[in-house]
């Protein structure tokens, strides 16, 4: 057999091995969570807030954290889209390809992308102290928004940068102003927006460090933006730190709920984008 065929066989086996390794990790994580979390999962977990002594094995559930996490994710995803779509649009439509400002802005977003969430949390925390604010749902939403805006922008930008020039020219030729091309641009980059949203939501719902200082933790469900809010990752953390094995198992069921929420959001996101991007050229 010629060497190049042997080479191909070896390369293929290495690729398969690596792919299996990664899939193995995921399966292992899910298996562990299911094995320990599923027995502890019951209706009380998702329908009740923690009763007294919950973290020592008392009754109740983690509804406070589920609701808190959903508030923060939905709020920050909404704010993130609100801020990042105009930025991406400006970078790609209004600025020329060789613009210095666009270059600096993209560099800045890359740097922001890499900053760990604990730094965002600490940064927001000092500002909150300065302003005399308490830990609150609003603070949590703001810090998570800051955290995910670079993710939104960079992943949408990668798609927007490849907008066909012919498509923009065709739109201009109909007498569109730059702003009026947004209807065409948004339709064309819809899959990018969806991917960006899913990545951001994943990061937002899983973030513990950013919300620790800013949203705080509480056993009740927040009813306004100025009240502190619990989040699922922190709930997992507090339950795991308990010496009580039964409470530790509950931490795994909380993680299971977290994964389930991410899954539901991902699938809905994909369905919505497929609907909007069917016309993509």
């Amino acid at each position, binding site marked *: 057999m010629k060497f190049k065929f042997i080479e191909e066989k070896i390369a293929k086996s290495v690729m398969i091995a690596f792919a299996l390794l990664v899939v193995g990790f995921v399966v292992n994580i899910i298996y562990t969570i299911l094995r320990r979390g599923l027995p502890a999962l019951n209706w009380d977990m998702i329908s009740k807030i923690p009763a007294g002594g919950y973290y020592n094995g008392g009754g109740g559930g983690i509804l406070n954290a589920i609701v808190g996490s959903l508030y923060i994710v939905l709020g920050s995803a909404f704010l993130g889209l609100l801020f990042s779509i105009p930025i991406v649009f400006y970078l790609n439509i209004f600025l020329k390809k060789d613009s210095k400002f666009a270059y600096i802005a993209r560099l800045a977003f890359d740097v922001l992308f890499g900053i760990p969430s604990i730094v965002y949390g600490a940064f927001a925390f000092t500002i909150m102290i300065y302003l005399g604010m308490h830990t609150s749902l609003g603070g949590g939403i703001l810090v998570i928004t800051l955290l995910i805006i670079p993710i939104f922008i960079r992943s949408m930008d990668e798609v927007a940068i490849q907008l066909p020039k*012919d498509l923009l020219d*065709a739109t201009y030729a*109909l007498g*569109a102003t730059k702003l009026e091309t947004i209807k*065409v641009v948004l339709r*064309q980059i819809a899959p990018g927006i969806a991917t960006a949203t899913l990545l951001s939501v994943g990061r937002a719902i899983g973030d513990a460090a950013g919300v620790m200082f800013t949203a705080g933790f509480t056993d009740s469900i927040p009813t306004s933006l100025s009240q502190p809010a619990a989040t699922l990752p922190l709930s997992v953390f507090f339950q795991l730190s308990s010496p009580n094995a039964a409470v530790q198992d509950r931490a795994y069921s909380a993680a299971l709920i977290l994964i389930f929420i991410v899954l539901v959001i991902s699938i809905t996101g994909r369905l919505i984008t497929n609907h909007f991007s069917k016309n*993509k*050229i």
Partner: protein
Amino acid sequence: MDTFQQGNAAQKKGTLGSLFFNNFLFNRSSLKHSRRQQSKSVYKIRNANLSVNNLNVFIHKNHILKNVNIEIPDKKITCIIGPSGCGKSTLLKTINRLIDDTEGVKYDGSILVDGTDIFDKKTEITEIRKKMGLLSQRPCPLPMSIYDNIAFGCKMHGEHKKKKLNEIVEEQLKAVGLWEEVKNRLNSPASKLSIGQQQRLCLARGLAVAPEFILADEATSALDPISSKHIEELFVEMKQDYAIIMVTHTLRQALRIADHVVFMYLGEVIEAGPADEVFNNPKQELTQKYLEGAFS
């Protein structure tokens, strides 16, 4: 087979349209009343007028267009011919100022469209572009349904009545001979059409905003022979209502349909004039050589 039949049908419609139009032209001074009625129809009294004066275009210090002076006659097909890289497409893109987005571009001179200098700072470029339907080399439908592709421009210019939009969509799709092929799937994505159908859709989309000029940048070069024949037939038919400016690198196509020819070489206009004059009796040696196929 289908395509040919539709082509014929479209031609018949064209003849009717032209009768209507000529008739109207002859009588237009007679009755004020009829003029007011007619001006509401598609065939408005208008005088599309485009002249390029002393135009120079530089891109990053490269002198792309050198002192270009041409007049585009109304209701005729003007073909811009010349070897690759001679500035044909740049000229076309300068006429509707799509060249503005090119990095490092500078221009001087003037282009008068119906008396308005398009380089004037006060000129609203969107209004100028609205007067010019663009057909690019590869069809580029908008990422929307077939219906919305045509309605998009109208909506943008303030037409939101559903009934009126339906009329425009049907009228323009019929004008390009696409109506019978797509009337049952107006809501399916435009990208699902064949490439020839897409090009006709793009033409209809441009026509929907009621332009005076049609700019075609090698509009048939990506199409199969039948589709390009179809587009050529449409151009011949439409020249009664529009001034058509066409960049082409196929000399034979220019021979077939041009009424007026502009021959360019290395950024300069070498010769311009009526087609039979330029083709049969070229004044310049370069034009003659090009026509003989000495270079391309």
